[in-house]
């Protein structure tokens, strides 16, 4: 069953409690953080508006990072994008392919939020959700989360006419359903990101076709090689026999 986060930017107060809980709960080393909160200030005094952009993995259904990962270190599970750092080769293709610029190389290996795999499998809820003091974060089944997000967006429209749900369809549907107070561009989110077609073709078409072509050619060459070598040996034997009978007197030069 697909799980998802709810992230209500209308309720985020930028307190960084989630950042800290994520770091301590997941025992992230110094210098590594899976959530970054950026304060946004828009407009000119005295007509200032603002909010807090949460930069974190959005767990795309059509995850570009997963489609380009050559080792399977990045993979989808329960609607979330997991990362097995032990399987990562550090190629960095995910870093270049993510439309939200989320994964980073840390100690030479890809690093990003894995939806608190260990914690949730042990029956807990993700650290960021658990610690949020203002109800900006929730975690649960995606359908339920979507329903809640729509209700929240609807309620916000009284104050923010452009309030909307983000993540229902983007990149195949996100595993982090966001409630925005304004259009996606205003908070710096792409309206409709798609992983480039080539990025999908590369792992799902080019690679299996390559492996298949090499394997089939090798097998065909092996079989044909045995037959062709036999043919060639026969023709050389014939030639040598002809040479011996023809060149009994002179040098074996005339072929």
């Amino acid at each position, binding site marked *: 069953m697909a799980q998802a986060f709810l992230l209500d930017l209308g309720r985020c107060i930028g307190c960084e409690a989630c950042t800290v809980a994520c770091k301590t709960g997941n025992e992230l080393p110094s210098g590594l953080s899976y959530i970054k909160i950026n304060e946004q200030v828009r407009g000119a005094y005295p007509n200032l508006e603002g909010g807090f952009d949460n930069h974190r993995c959005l767990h795309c259904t059509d995850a*570009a990072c997963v489609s*380009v990962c*050559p*080792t*399977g*270190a990045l993979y989808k599970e329960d609607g979330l994008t997991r990362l097995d750092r*032990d*399987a*990562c*080769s*550090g*190629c*960095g*293709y995910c*870093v*270049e*392919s993510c*439309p939200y610029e989320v994964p980073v190389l840390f100690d*030479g*290996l890809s690093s990003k939020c894995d939806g608190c795999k260990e914690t949730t499998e042990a029956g807990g809820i993700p650290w960021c959700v658990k610690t949020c003091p203002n109800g900006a974060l929730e975690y649960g089944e995606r359908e339920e989360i979507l329903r809640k997000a729509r209700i929240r967006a609807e309620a916000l429209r009284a104050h923010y006419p452009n309030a909307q749900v983000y993540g229902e369809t983007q990149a195949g549907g996100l595993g982090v359903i966001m409630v925005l107070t304004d259009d996606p561009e205003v908070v710096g989110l792409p309206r409709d990101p798609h*992983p*480039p077609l*080539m*990025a999908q*073709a*590369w792992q799902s078409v*080019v*690679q299996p076709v*390559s*492996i298949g*072509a*090499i394997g089939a*050619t*090798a097998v065909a*060459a092996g079989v*044909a*090689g045995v*037959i*062709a*070598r*036999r*043919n*060639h*040996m026969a*023709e*050389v034997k014939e*030639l*040598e026999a002809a*040479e011996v009978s023809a060149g009994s007197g002179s040098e*074996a030069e005339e*072929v």
Partner: protein
Amino acid sequence: MTVVTSINKEEHVILRYRRTQRSVHFLLASSFVLLLLTGLVLLWDPLGFLAAGGASRMIHRFGAVLFIAVPLVYLVTDREGAKELVYDSFHFDKDDRAWLVHIIPYVLGHAEEMPPAGRLNAGQKLHHAAVILISATVVVSGLLLWFFKSSLGETGLAWVVVAHDISMLLLTLFLVGHLYFTYVYKAISGMTTGWVEEVDARLEHPKWVAELEAEAAASASSEGEQPPHDAE
């Protein structure tokens, strides 16, 4: 220019590849296999675990340096050989074209009826030409992935990876063909000891043997003088 004793009449063998050429070939072959194996772990899922940690990438880059060094090493150690290889591989005469038309019996092990070939038959020329050109695309795309990965953009990166993969796919198919003909025409000695059986050379490269004999005759008649090397 010392090409004189490339035919050994006593043992009926002919020198096909000099030591420098065999060394360059070994460098090319070993670096290619190293690159193929360390690349394959990223291409084929069941081998993916071998790429974990990134050691295979370091070996791949080491192999890449050797691979890129191949043409330079050839030019430095055997300028004539390198020039001859490139020239011959991109020049097809009338016999070569006829040879290509009749390629199927040759593939099946029948060399006897083939139009006469020179030092390289038309198949080898095509093989060399393709390897030279595709090596260029594999090297360029590889260098882009090594040094400019983060400035290609997500679409650009995907294109370059696909170009790198397809180039390597083609080179690997050419390698399969290369091993195939080496086996069918028991040609391995040319690259191990450098010498091939005279009977094989006469059958598969008659124009080349005739050339060598003409050179040998010329140098024998003009004893002591420098044999003219650039015949034709």
